[in-house]
């Protein structure tokens, strides 16, 4: 009985946090049309500020609360609305998702520039003496828990009333459904959208300062994102629309979780593996099984037709010469680099090159899934990890040749990718993204711990491949092998893009309805893309595992996977060049640019501040914020600038030959004009 009531009360407290976060997600979706996966890190920002003020500098709790929740959180909301989301109303869903994803990566980086979360322990709560316990018979609640429950209840009631009785609530919804229609009806949609963002950010801030009290008094970004996963389950169960349902689902989830904690035998496999994965597993199951999701389709603005057609993607106007020129430039640069690596590079330089080649392969999987498939899967690192795990397990346990095991690993990843895509198919858009997110987290929190999957904490050394007399144990020869594999993968991607599958996919990206009307099955195209992308990721995973000599779970964390996506999207998700450049950046930023090159440069251009190694958070900020430009440049920033540069170059050469520059049509010429 004790367990029953203890689970119930603790569960309600825990569930209130889920519910609060779920309300925030539902609210954001209802009022701004954004499925805000960055909601957790918004909460984290407020939590961090509150911690710094109240726990570290002993500022009065009330003042700190006002600063973190009433001032900072809505301010962040205003910034997000003004700078980003205002311009994304009515934009394709994938643009809004990528923007939120960029924030999810960038915001913790920004916060951590000033905030050392490893030291952020024994956080003090909002209410004084938070651990005071009140008991009613078998039920016990601490003051902190009561504070959370009360805050959640107030927010839930307030928001329900807002939507039911205030004109503001109605207008908020109108603006999401059709900003133009709303404006015709005399609503200032910019102001309403700002109000929506202030409100949801306030809820995020509130959750942010309350949350450390139930996560061991620590302020760590991972806790926030993890709790948001559970909140996503609740929000999805509420069909992303109903606040009361979100509350019920959040509470239910919390209670179930606490009961499981108490009633499951503590040292069984289930307890030690399934339990921590509960939020992810339930997210996975809900998305796979909930029949109502099919009906939630991203609403499109009925008045969208009055918009001028979008400017043709710059890709469409890239001239042949520009393409040839850029390719030649990169080819020469690449060969020069390789010559240097092979002939003169020390071990560390060769290591860079091997990793760049492997990451280029891994990033090709994102080119397939996102650039070609138009989807935003968040599990590519997981598929790579699966490839690596399968390959190293087969090689060490079964003694198979590593070349073979790497291929089998890729095959297994491809099959899992296809199977994964089956339930996700009917969903598409945000749900497919969430589904892969749930899969990645579930895999990370459950399967990675099984010895038979990954070889345990200290996996056996996984050998390097050998073909007959050629041994790839040497790093130089391994590099050559990786380059060959990259060449093959790149060729396959290019062939697929120019072939039937690529054409079908770009049709589906353009209009799923129209594609179906000529007999193209979006579902089939997606399964194929998912499988291909997962297979390529698995291949890269096998290579990296073999190169490093053992399976290393840190390479394949979900968050790392998000960063991959963000970096590729920033640089160029449509092309092999983009994948290769992203690999350069990914490998070199961490290892050379931030610790050495950038400080050196900064110390040379200005003598005032001595700058030492920059924290790795900088790269998350840099590329996280880079990704939010996706909406403007879906072909990637680098690609965009490259084309501009080529355009300018061509104009200049044309001019010097006395020709006119009318051969370059479309947007490129106008940008080129601006640049020259």
């Amino acid at each position, binding site marked *: 009985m004790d367990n029953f009531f203890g689970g119930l009360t603790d569960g309600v407290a825990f569930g209130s946090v889920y519910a609060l976060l779920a309300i925030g997600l539902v609210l954001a979706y209802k009022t701004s049309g954004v499925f805000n996966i960055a909601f957790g890190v918004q909460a984290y920002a407020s939590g961090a500020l509150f911690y710094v003020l109240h726990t570290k500098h002993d500022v009065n709790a009330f003042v700190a609360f006002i600063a973190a929740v009433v001032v900072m959180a809505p301010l962040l909301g205003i910034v997000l609305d003004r700078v980003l989301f205002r311009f994304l109303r009515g934009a394709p869903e994938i643009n809004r998702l990528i923007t939120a994803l960029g924030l999810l990566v960038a915001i913790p980086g920004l916060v951590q520039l000033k905030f050392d979360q490893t030291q952020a322990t024994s956080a003090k709560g909002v209410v004084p003496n938070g651990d005071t316990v009140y008991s009613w018979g078998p039920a016990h609640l601490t003051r902190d828990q009561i504070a959370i429950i009360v805050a959640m209840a107030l927010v839930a009631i307030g928001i329900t009333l807002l939507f039911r009785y205030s004109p503001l609530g109605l207008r908020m919804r109108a603006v999401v459904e059709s900003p133009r229609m709303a404006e015709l009806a005399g609503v200032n949609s910019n102001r309403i959208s700002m109000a929506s963002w202030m409100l949801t950010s306030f809820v995020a801030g509130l959750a942010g300062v309350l949350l450390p009290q139930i996560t061991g008094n620590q302020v760590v970004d991972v806790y926030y994102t993890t709790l948001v996963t559970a909140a996503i389950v609740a929000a999805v169960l509420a069909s992303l629309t109903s606040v009361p349902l979100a509350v019920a689902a959040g509470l239910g989830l919390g209670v179930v979780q606490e009961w499981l904690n108490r009633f499951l035998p503590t040292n069984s496999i289930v307890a030690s593996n399934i339990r921590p994965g509960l939020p992810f597993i339930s997210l996975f199951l809900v998305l796979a099984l909930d029949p109502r999701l099919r009906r939630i389709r991203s609403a499109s603005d009925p008045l969208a037709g009055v918009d001028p057609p979008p400017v043709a993607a710059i890709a469409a106007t890239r001239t042949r010469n520009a393409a040839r020129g850029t390719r030649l430039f990169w080819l020469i640069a690449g060969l020069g680099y390789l010559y240097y690596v092979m002939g003169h590079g020390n071990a560390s330089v060769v290591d860079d090159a091997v990793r760049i080649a492997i990451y280029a392969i891994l990033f090709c999987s994102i080119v397939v899934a996102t650039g070609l498939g138009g989807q935003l899967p968040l599990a590519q690192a997981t598929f790579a990890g699966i490839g690596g795990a399968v390959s190293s397990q087969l090689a060490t346990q079964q003694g198979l040749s590593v070349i073979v095991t790497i291929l089998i690993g890729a095959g297994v990843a491809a099959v899992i990718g296809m199977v994964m895509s089956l339930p996700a198919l009917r969903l598409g858009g945000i749900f497919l993204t969430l589904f892969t997110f749930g899969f990645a987290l579930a895999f990370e929190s459950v399967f990675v711990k099984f010895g038979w999957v990954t070889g345990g904490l200290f996996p056996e050394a996984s050998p390097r491949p050998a073909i007959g007399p050629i041994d790839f144990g040497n790093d130089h020869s391994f590099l050559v092998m990786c380059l060959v594999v990259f060449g093959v993968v790149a060729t396959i991607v290019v062939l697929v893009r120019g*072939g039937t*599958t690529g*054409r*079908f996919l*770009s049709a589906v990206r353009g209009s799923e309805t129209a*594609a179906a*009307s*000529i007999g193209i099955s979006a579902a089939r195209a997606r399964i*194929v893309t998912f499988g291909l992308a997962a297979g390529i990721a698995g291949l890269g995973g096998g290579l990296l595992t073999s190169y490093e000599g053992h399976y290393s779970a840190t390479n394949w964390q979900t968050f790392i996977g998000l960063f991959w996506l963000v970096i590729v999207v920033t640089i160029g998700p449509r092309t092999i060049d983009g994948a290769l450049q992203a690999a350069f950046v990914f490998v070199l930023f961490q290892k050379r640019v931030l610790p050495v090159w950038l400080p050196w440069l900064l110390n040379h251009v200005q003598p005032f501040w001595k700058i030492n190694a920059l924290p790795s958070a900088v790269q998350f900020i840099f590329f996280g914020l880079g990704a939010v430009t996706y909406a403007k440049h879906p072909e990637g920033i680098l690609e965009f600038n490259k084309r501009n540069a080529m355009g300018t170059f061509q104009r200049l050469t044309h001019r010097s030959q006395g020709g006119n520059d009318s051969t370059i049509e479309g947007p490129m010429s106008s940008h080129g004009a601006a640049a020259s």
Partner: protein
Amino acid sequence: MTLFEARDVSKKFAGIMALDNVSIDVNDGEIVGLVGPNGAGKTTFFNCLLGLLKPDGGTITFDGAELSRVPTHRRARIGIGRTFQRIELFSGMSVREHLLVAERARRGDGRLWKDVIGMGRPRPDELARVDAMLELLGLTAEADRPVEMLSLGRARVVELARALMIEPKLLLLDEPSSGLDHAETAEIAEKLREVNRERGTAILIVEHDMPMVRSLVSRVFVLDFGRLIASGSVDEVFDDDAVRKAYIGDNN
């Protein structure tokens, strides 16, 4: 021979009976009109026919097969092509690419391994067929333009070309003349007649332009508030009182 038959098709949206026991049939090689005031349910009927919407009741048969369990893209494969009232083109693709992708879809051989071994590129015979269609609909000059650069009228022609590429037995046209001027309308009507005559393609056309309907079709169905209020030959139907009443106050 009846090519297509819808029987008692109904569809309800949150309180609105968009289709109320509608029965419509089209014979082989026939051009049939479907008219009615705004909001009568014409587009909804097309969407039910294609499987984009699931009707609440009724049966739809095409070429002898019952369609209720056939997914949308299969319905296209068995010979139903359509255009959209609100243009649905593949953004980012050129006109030629629209037709190429449709041609490939018609053949239905989109195996990944063929792409991987380099067999996925457009073949000469495909390019030739595409060129012929561009020629037929007068799109040759715009063939390599991205569709975003086209006017609404030209975009409608591209949609028509794309639908024709899959060689449908039945072509559904949703207001093909809206956004077009008189000359363009006449031209489209002429092309439709030509396609109908030469390929035997049956056409079910939704249209507000009555002269165009009169000039094209042999029979019309009239929808009003989701109900079929008249059907028969053009002259019969347009003399019908109920039909006149439904159209009074209509801006067309």
